[in-house]
């Protein structure tokens, strides 16, 4: 690829076009809004309301099954606070990572494989836009909304969680420092990882559905499981969180850079 500077007007034009088109597709937009809403608004609300109810829900038996380092700070809390802190402070963390992973994967599939499916790729390749600019535009089309939606979702989550749990907690307990690492370091890394996977998958897939099936049904759940397992550790120690985040970023950057090498007009046109 050329080593010239990125041509931002072209990149912006492609992003604008792709995001305008995606914004009109209910099949893409609705899941991207409903899933975060359920996980980051409805679930913490239900948990908060349950904790506020008169019935004390004892989670100590559950906590006895999880690693001591994770359970100890929760066990020190009053019983009524334990459920809220356990679920909203800890167990939702891996679920939260579904948002950047899902959004980036869905948008990347639309941006890369979708061009083939809609038969718009060839006319795009005949335009005077550098391969690198086109690749960057497609990456950003998926990455930027994924990260923004995650951040907006987290702000909603923090507001809902703290508000609903206030009568029990009497303090703001989300975000913690570890949650901030999760939001600003791990979540964008996970978005990039989902993107990297879909870039590779989309190179072979002929339709968005094929890319989603390959990436969404096979590879991403495995990544999600790995990240989910790791996120328990993330909330134990800030350094572990940073290291796990860095690991995710390294894999994501490697996948994207491999994808970039294959993202040439010649290779794309040869598969048309």
């Amino acid at each position: 690829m050329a080593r010239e500077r990125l041509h931002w007007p072209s990149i912006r034009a492609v992003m604008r076009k792709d995001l305008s088109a995606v914004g009109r597709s209910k099949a893409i937009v609705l899941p991207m809004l409903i899933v975060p809403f359920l996980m980051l608004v409805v679930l913490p609300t239900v948990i908060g309301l349950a904790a506020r109810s008169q019935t004390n829900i004892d989670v100590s038996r559950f906590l006895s099954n999880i690693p001591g380092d994770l359970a100890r700070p929760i066990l020190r809390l009053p019983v009524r606070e334990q459920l809220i802190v356990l679920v909203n402070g800890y167990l939702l963390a891996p679920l939260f990572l579904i948002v950047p992973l899902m959004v980036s994967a869905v948008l990347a599939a639309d941006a890369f494989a979708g061009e083939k499916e809609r038969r718009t790729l060839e006319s795009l390749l005949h335009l005077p836009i550098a391969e690198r600019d086109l690749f960057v535009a497609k990456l950003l089309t998926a990455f930027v909304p994924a990260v923004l939606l995650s951040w907006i979702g987290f702000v909603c989550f923090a507001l809902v969680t703290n508000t609903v749990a206030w009568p029990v907690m009497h303090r703001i307990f989300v975000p913690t420092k570890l949650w901030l690492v999760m939001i600003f370091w791990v979540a964008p890394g996970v978005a990039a990882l989902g993107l990297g996977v879909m870039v590779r998958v989309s190179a072979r897939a002929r339709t968005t559905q094929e890319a989603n099936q390959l990436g969404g049904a096979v590879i991403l759940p495995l990544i999600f499981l790995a990240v989910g397992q790791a996120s328990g550790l993330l909330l134990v120690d800030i350094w572990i969180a940073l290291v796990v985040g860095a690991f995710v970023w390294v894999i994501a950057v490697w996948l994207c850079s491999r994808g970039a090498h294959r993202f040439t007009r010649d290779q794309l046109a040869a598969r048309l």
Partner: protein
Amino acid sequence: MNAAIEAHELSRTFGPTVALDGLSFELQAGEVLALLGPNGAGKTTTVRLLNGVLRPDRGGARVLGLDPVTDGEALRRRTGVLTENAGLDDRLTARENLTFVARIRGLEGRDGERRVDELLGRFGMSDRAGDKVQGFSTGQRKRLALARALLHDPEVLFLDEPTSGLDPAATRDVIDLIGSLATEHGRTVVLCTHFLPEAGRLAHRMAVLHGGHLEAFGRPDELAAELWDGLEADVDLGAPIDDRTTALVAALDGVTAATATADGVRVRVRDREVLAALVALLVGREVPVYGAVPRVPTLEDVYFAIEERKERDRGA
């Protein structure tokens, strides 16, 4: 004159499939080239190679003096392409599809908007400018895609089936437009098409591809001269020719073929003098002759003759 397009031994394979094998030709600025051949002949591959979308395995090309491999981006700023399927985003409106390309081509702001409006108007799409392309007919898509290809007033146009899906009036308009782009504005056009009459009306040169090989290249009349000796003419006798008169015509010195038609006979003769002698002979034998019109082979005739020759060669 400077060649607008030069291809030299241009070749490309996809795995075991030879898509194009040693294509060489030269096209002058302002000329229309009809790139003809059956499906899979290599027409689309040729366009992709000439516009720097594909890289050749062997050989090379220069388009507007630029190498498509090394100067692809600069070249694509000066070329316009209409792909076989219109390649429009169904989820965007007609205007948005054009505006996107205008932005990529550096036509920003008011200039871009003005140009988009101008082309929407020129192709009769102003009233559908704000509608999503999803509901458009094939003809409307084709017109919009043509407008997109012309946004930046390109010097070279690659048009793949520009009239497929268009109604007769729109077809005529597009053909007139392509003709005027070449003749009045000096634009070079490479026209891939299966519609031979349309190619015949527009093309200064024709190239016939078959299985990636160039079977013929040149002006249709030059190729006709290579294919056939002498002159073909329709002799109008007011009725189909009878066997006795056919034998009389065929026996005349200089007549190489005689075939009955609905109105008389189609003959192939050595030259115009033989045609005059033939008319005199028929009149002398009191056979009424209402007319004798030399028939200039059409591009269609030339194309099918080349295809037949190809089949004969394959049989041999």
